[in-house]
């Protein structure tokens, strides 16, 4: 009974049945998306520049973002968690580094160029700004990232005290710029997916080409080795030995001594027998040669003499 419950096909159906409701009711999945990759920026000041160090979402290594201003005094930069300023139209996955609050002190009503530089920004990164006093709180600053030094890209945002981009909305001698870099999630996810899938093909294709080339090289070397190897030894063709029926009792005067006969027979046997694993039929054919048969008889007789010799006492002098 239990074993029937756990048949391969049934287990699969159990899994499908358990998970199917989730596919049908995808709203239930909203509960899944807890923020497991919350960036926690740390700030350090070097003269006029404040540098944020953080591990953004979808990254395993930390990145640096430099904040600077040409006018006024950059007083503070703070990190703001995504949830605190979230609006329904914002997707957490698109703001990988969360938000920053940049504060610059300057004469009231004047403007400052706030610069943000990082290798984390790409040319397609946008910088979105927040203003709580506007009907649409979040908006694209409309400023394109420019190529900075090395691999970094740079946003230069002109903010006027009390202007649109100043989050406090008043000309009070302090600019408060709240915002964050935005990268479109799906274009990145699908783009990188395609690139990386073909990357796997590329890597294995390069390996294949390498292996094919080396395989060909080995085949050529092997062929050359076979060609240059000395040809196997082939004995010169000797005139055929006249086939004569061996006499059952050879005349002692016309035949050589038994040792010579046995040696010749053995030599002939070895010459005519294939070197490696002859099959039974071939042995039989070779064995039909009269000389060989005679030689074998002689060898056997010699062995018999050993067996038939008189037994001597063990303790002989």
């Amino acid at each position: 009974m239990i074993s029937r419950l756990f048949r391969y096909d049934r287990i699969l159906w159990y899994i499908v049945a358990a998970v199917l409701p989730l596919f049908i009711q995808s709203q239930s999945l909203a509960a899944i998306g807890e923020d497991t990759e919350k960036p926690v920026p740390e700030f350090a000041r070097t003269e006029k520049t404040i540098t944020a160090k953080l591990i953004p979402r979808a990254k395993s290594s930390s990145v640096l973002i430099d904040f600077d201003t040409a006018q006024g005094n950059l007083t503070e930069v703070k990190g703001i968690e995504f949830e605190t300023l979230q609006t329904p139209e914002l997707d957490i996955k698109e703001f990988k580094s969360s938000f920053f609050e940049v504060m610059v002190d300057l004469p009231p009503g004047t403007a400052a160029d706030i610069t943000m530089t990082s290798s984390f920004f790409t040319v397609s990164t946008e910088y979105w700004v927040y203003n709580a006093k506007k009907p649409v709180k979040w908006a694209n600053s409309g400023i394109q990232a420019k190529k900075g030094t090395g691999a970094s890209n740079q946003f230069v945002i002109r903010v006027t005290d009390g202007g649109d981009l100043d989050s406090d909305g008043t000309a009070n001698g302090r600019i408060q710029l709240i915002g964050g870099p935005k990268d479109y999630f799906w274009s990145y996810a699908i783009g990188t997916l395609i690139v990386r899938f073909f990357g796997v093909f590329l890597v294995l294709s390069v390996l294949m080409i390498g292996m094919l080339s080396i395989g060909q090289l080995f085949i050529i070397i092997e062929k050359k080795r076979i060609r240059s190897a000395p040809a196997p030894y082939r004995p010169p063709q000797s005139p055929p030995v006249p086939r004569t029926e061996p006499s059952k009792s050879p005349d002692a005067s016309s035949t050589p001594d038994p040792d010579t006969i046995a040696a010749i027979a053995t030599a002939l046997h070895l010459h005519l027998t294939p070197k490696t694993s002859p099959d039974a039929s071939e042995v039989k054919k070779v064995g039909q040669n009269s000389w060989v048969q005679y030689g074998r008889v002689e060898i056997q007789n010699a062995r018999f003499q050993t067996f038939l010799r008189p037994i001597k006492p063990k303790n002989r002098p």
Partner: protein
Amino acid sequence: MSWEQLAELIRSILFTQTGVPNLTGGNVLMIGVGLLFLYLAIAKDYEPLLLLPIGFGIFIVNFPLTPLMGYTEHGNPDLIRAFYKYGVEWEIIPCVIFLGLGAMTDFGPLIANPKTLIIGAGAQLGVFVTYIGTLFFGFTLKEAASVGIIGGADGPTTIYLTTKLAPHLLGANALAAYSYMAMVPLIQPPIMRWMTTPAQRRIKMRQLRVVSAKEKLLFPLIASVLIVLLIPAVAPLMGMFMFGNLMRESGVVKRLSDTAQNALMNIVTIFLGLSVGATMQAEIFLNWKPMLIFAFGLLDFVVCTFGGILTVHVMNIFLKEKMNPLIGSAGVSAVPMSARVSHVEGLKADPDNWLIMHAMGPNLAGVIGSAAAAGMFIAMFQ
């Protein structure tokens, strides 16, 4: 001591020093899950080398108040936490397993027919499709990548990547990977029959050429150079894999090769299984994500099989000597189970068609392909 004091003492012992009053429904459920996997491993022989220690890990860690996966007051890890911390968290065990796998692997069929490497790449289709699919369901990019790699059908690669990107999903991912690897003979044949005609299944492939010992010896070096140059992120896995193979093919360190294949591999398998199982504590594991991971794991295997067979069909358009598309399914890795499935399906179509050695090529290519895909993902998040 008064009766009241005695009752207080007993109550205190019961609630703070025994597990019974602290046992939750979640614990009971997870103990049941552990027993289920033990049953599957012992009675059904589903990947018992991994599922048995994983099942026992789930079983033992879900008893309340057990000092197994926590830390002592002095900050020292408990027993299984120590296995996990130094073996899995430090990413040592998956690489050591790759060393053993390398020492066990004969790359002859792949070297004899390098074209099958492309099948290994095509069979990673499911990895990337699942990656996108899971994103729709609210997974983060890192989680999606770690779930996607399940379709690579390579346990150590799955564990390695998950540990790096989404360690909180380690238990579910490893369990899904090993469970579906055991179910390859069930998952793949219907897809293989659906995607091939009887005539295609009867295609006979030319016997593979003999590969010399020198070629086999050079392979790990050449493969290391090319793969590590192109994807440095995969060097720990591929480096150990090729080192194991070099030990085997060199023939001069038989003792080391033997240790890597047997004793070392067995030891780390015990620690790996227990550690992975022990990550599945009720309070961490019981949510919707593991269920989704199991669903996407299945989809992953299906699409990877599809991708492998499709790749052979596409290659056959350009090849003079056609390949039997059944070997495409072996590109999902799961060595050697999926190669055997290809062989058995081939025999069903033609009892004289022996595909096992031809299927081993894409099978080994699948191992390299899944490691390459893992390397791509690691590089993506650097």
